[in-house]
C-alpha cells in the first residue's frame, strides 16, 4: 500500500517515514516474497496437484471405508516391513487417492536412521508405483524453505522475508490515510496513480488474510526462530516429551519387550475413532513396535472441519486393542499455536473455502507483484534520462521480469517436465525440480539480455503458451485427457486443465496490454495523455 503520492506533509512526518519503510521493506525481499506467495498459493491445492502429477494412480470415485483400508495396509506392512520399529499410514480421503505410508528400517550406516516410504492402493492394499515426483509437495516446501540450500537456511530466509512483509503490511496501513474513503477508488488511465490504486485495492480487500498469513507463517516456525523461551522452560527430557505431546500425535516409543505378539485388529481401533469423530474424520494411524507385546497404536483425528492443528488422537495397546487414552485437548498456549498454524495451512477447509484461500492468496501475490512494478513505475518518471537509467533501477526492472513472468514460466515448466521426463528414471523427482530452476535461470538471462518491454511481452506470451498447451500435452501423454475427465467427473484432472487455460488467458491479456502499451508509447509521449494500466506500464517503451 504505497501511497507516497498521497502523502503531502512538510518534513518527514509519521506517514512519510512509514511510506519509506513500506517501500524499502517491500522491495528488498520483494522477489523472494513474490515467489513465496505464488508457490504458497498453489499449495492450497497441493494434494490435487500431486494427484495430477501421478496420473498412473487411479481416481478414487468413492473413498473406501478407512477402517478396512487401515487393516489392509497394516497386514501388507507385516509382509513388506516385518520387524519395523514404527510405521505410520496417512489414510486416503477426498483429496488423496492413495494411502501414504512411512516405516522405519534398519539404518544403513551407524548413527543414521533408515526409513521406507511408499504409496498404497486403498482398494487392494498393495504398494503402487508411479513416476518419481515430489508433486505439489515441491511448491509447498519451496514456499518456506526454498531449495539447493540447507533447510535451516531456507527457513531463516523465509522467516526474514515474512518479517519484512509484516513490516510492509503495518507500515502500509499507517501510510494509507484514506483507507475507507478510497476503498473502491480506481483512477483509470493515470499511470502511477492507477498502479497505486490497484495495489491498494489488492492490499486492502485481502488485508485480514495478508496479515494473518504472514503472522501465522512466522508462528509455524517460531520454535526455530525464537527457541530461548522453550529452552528455558523445558529442560529435562521428560519436560520436552510433555511439550511434544502437546504439539504432535507422536507416541514416544518405549522399549520393546522382545516378546512377540501380533497386532490386534487395526480395523476395530479405527472403528472406535470413527464412532467418536465421524466416519470420514480419521487421518493417520501410527504404530510403534508392531508385533511386540509393548506395541502401541495411535489413531489421529483428521484435520477437516476444525480450525486447529493441535493433536487429537486415541491411543491403543497394540497387542490387545485396549483403549488406553483419548487426547482431545491441549493447554491454552499449545491451542493458540494450533489455531494459528491451522489458519495458515487451511486444511480444515471445504472445497469452497479452499478456493477462497486460493483466490485471496492470489490477490496477495498480485499485491506483491504490483508493489514491485510500482517501484520502477514511480522512479522512471524521475529519471534524468529514462533511456539510460542507473544500475539499481535496471537491476530491479530485470529482476521484476524474471521473478514475476519468469516464475510463471518456471512453474509451468515443472509441470511439463512431469509429463515429458521418461519414467522410470534415476533421480526423476530431482530432475523435475532441476528443470524448474534451469528454466527460471534462463528467464533471468532472457530478462537481462532483452529490452525491458520486449522481455515482459515475450515472457508473458511464453507463460501463456506453455499454460495453453499443457492440457494438450496431458492428453497426449496420459490416459486422462480433458474430455474423459469431464465424462467421468474427474474434477482434479478437469479442473487442472481448465485452470491452466484460465491462467493462460490471464497471461495473454497481460502480454497484449503490455505490447499495446509499447506500441502506443511514442504517440502517447507526444500527446502527453494518460495511459491504460499494463504490467509494464511506464516501465519505458524501449
Amino acid at each position: 500500500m504505497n501511497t507516497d503520492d498521497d502523502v503531502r506533509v512538510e518534513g518527514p512526518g509519521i506517514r512519510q517515514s512509514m511510506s519509506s519503510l513500506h517501500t524499502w521493506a517491500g522491495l528488498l525481499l520483494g522477489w523472494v516474497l513474490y515467489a513465496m506467495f505464488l508457490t504458497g498459493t498453489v499449495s492450497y491445492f497441493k494434494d490435487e496437484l500431486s494427484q495430477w502429477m501421478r496420473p498412473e494412480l487411479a481416481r478414487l470415485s468413492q473413498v473406501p471405508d478407512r477402517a478396512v483400508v487401515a487393516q489392509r495396509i497394516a497386514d501388507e506392512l507385516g509382509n513388506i516391513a516385518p520387524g519395523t520399529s514404527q510405521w505410520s499410514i496417512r489414510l486416503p480421503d477426498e483429496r488423496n487417492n492413495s494411502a501414504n505410508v512411512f516405516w522405519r528400517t534398519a539404518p544403513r550406516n551407524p548413527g543414521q536412521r533408515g526409513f521406507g516410504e511408499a504409496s498404497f492402493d486403498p482398494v487392494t492394499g498393495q504398494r503402487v508405483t508411479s513416476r518419481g515426483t515430489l508433486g505439489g509437495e515441491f511448491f509447498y516446501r519451496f514456499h518456506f524453505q526454498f531449495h539447493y540450500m540447507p533447510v535451516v537456511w531456507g527457513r531463516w530466509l523465509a522467516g526474514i522475508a515474512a518479517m519484512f512483509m509484516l513490516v510492509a503490511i503495518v507500515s502500509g496501513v499507517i501510510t494509507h490515510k484514506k483507507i475507507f474513503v478510497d476503498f473502491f477508488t480506481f483512477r483509470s488511465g493515470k499511470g502511477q496513480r492507477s498502479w497505486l490504486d490497484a495495489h491498494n485495492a489488492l492490499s486492502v480487500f485481502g488485508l485480514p488474510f495478508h496479515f494473518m498469513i504472514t503472522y501465522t507463517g512466522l508462528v509455524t516456525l517460531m520454535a526455530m526462530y525464537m527457541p530461548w523461551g522453550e529452552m528455558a522452560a523445558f529442560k529435562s527430557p521428560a519436560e520436552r516429551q510433555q511439550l511434544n505431546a502437546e504439539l504432535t500425535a507422536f507416541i514416544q516409543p518405549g522399549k520393546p519387550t522382545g516378546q512377540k505378539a501380533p497386532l490386534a485388529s487395526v480395523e476395530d481401533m479405527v472403528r472406535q475413532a470413527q464412532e467418536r469423530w465421524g466416519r470420514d474424520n480419521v487421518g493417520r494411524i501410527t504404530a510403534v513396535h508392531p508385533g511386540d507385546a509393548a506395541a502401541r497404536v495411535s489413531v489421529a483425528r483428521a484435520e477437516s472441519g476444525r480450525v486447529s492443528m493441535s493433536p487429537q488422537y486415541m491411543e491403543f495397546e497394540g497387542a490387545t486393542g485396549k483403549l488406553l487414552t483419548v487426547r482431545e485437548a491441549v493447554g491454552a498456549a499449545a491451542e493458540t499455536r494450533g489455531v494459528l498454524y491451522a489458519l495458515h495451512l487451511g486444511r480444515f477447509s471445504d472445497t469452497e473455502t479452499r478456493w477462497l484461500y486460493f483466490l485471496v492468496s492470489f490477490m496477495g501475490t498480485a499485491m506483491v507483484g504490483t508493489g514491485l512494478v510500482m517501484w520502477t513505475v514511480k522512479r522512471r518518471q524521475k529519471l534524468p534520462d529514462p533511456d539510460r537509467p542507473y544500475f539499481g533501477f535496471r537491476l530491479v526492472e530485470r529482476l521484476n521480469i524474471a521473478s514475476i513472468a519468469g516464475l510463471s514460466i518456471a512453474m509451468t515448466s515443472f509441470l511439463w517436465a512431469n509429463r515429458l521426463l521418461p519414467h522410470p528414471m534415476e533421480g526423476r523427482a530431482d530432475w523435475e525440480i532441476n528443470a524448474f530452476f534451469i528454466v527460471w535461470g534462463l528467464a533471468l538471462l532472457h530478462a537481462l539480455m532483452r529490452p525491458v518491454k520486449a522481455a515482459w511481452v515475450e515472457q508473458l506470451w511464453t507463460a501463456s503458451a506453455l499454460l495453453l498447451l499443457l492440457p494438450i500435452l496431458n492428453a497426449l501423454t496420459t490416459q486422462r485427457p480433458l474430455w474423459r475427465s469431464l465424462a467421468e467427473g474427474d474434477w482434479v484432472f478437469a479442473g487442472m486443465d481448465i485452470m491452466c487455460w484460465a491462467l493462460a488467458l490471464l497471461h495473454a491479456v497481460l502480454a497484449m496490454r503490455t505490447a499495446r502499451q509499447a506500441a502506443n508509447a511514442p504517440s502517447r509521449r507526444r500527446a502527453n495523455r494518460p495511459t491504460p494500466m499494463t504490467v509494464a506500464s511506464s516501465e519505458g517503451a524501449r
Partner: protein
Amino acid sequence: MTHLAAFVLCLAGFAALAFATRRQQRDILGGSLRSAATYGLRVAGVCALLSALGILVAKYGWSLGLVMLSGHTSLAAGFVYCVLIGLVRTHGPPAAHAN
C-alpha cells in the same frame, strides 16, 4: 448453498457501501445522492455483511464462519471493485476518466 448465499450478501453489502461513497456516486450516477440515501446505503451494506456472517456462523460455527466470511468479503469486494471499473468505463461521465 450457504456459501453462495453468503457471497451474494457480501456482494450486495459492498455494492451498497460503494454507492454510499461520493466518488462512486459522482463517477457512475453523475452526481451526489441525498445524505439520507447515502446513510441508508451504508446501513444496508453493513446489515448485508452482518447477515452473511450470521448465516455462516449459524451453519459452521464461529471459528469456521469467521474464516469463511473473511474470504467471502475479500472476494466480493474485489468483484464489486472490478464491476465498478467497468461501470465507470461504460456508463460513467467523461469527467470520471480525468479525475
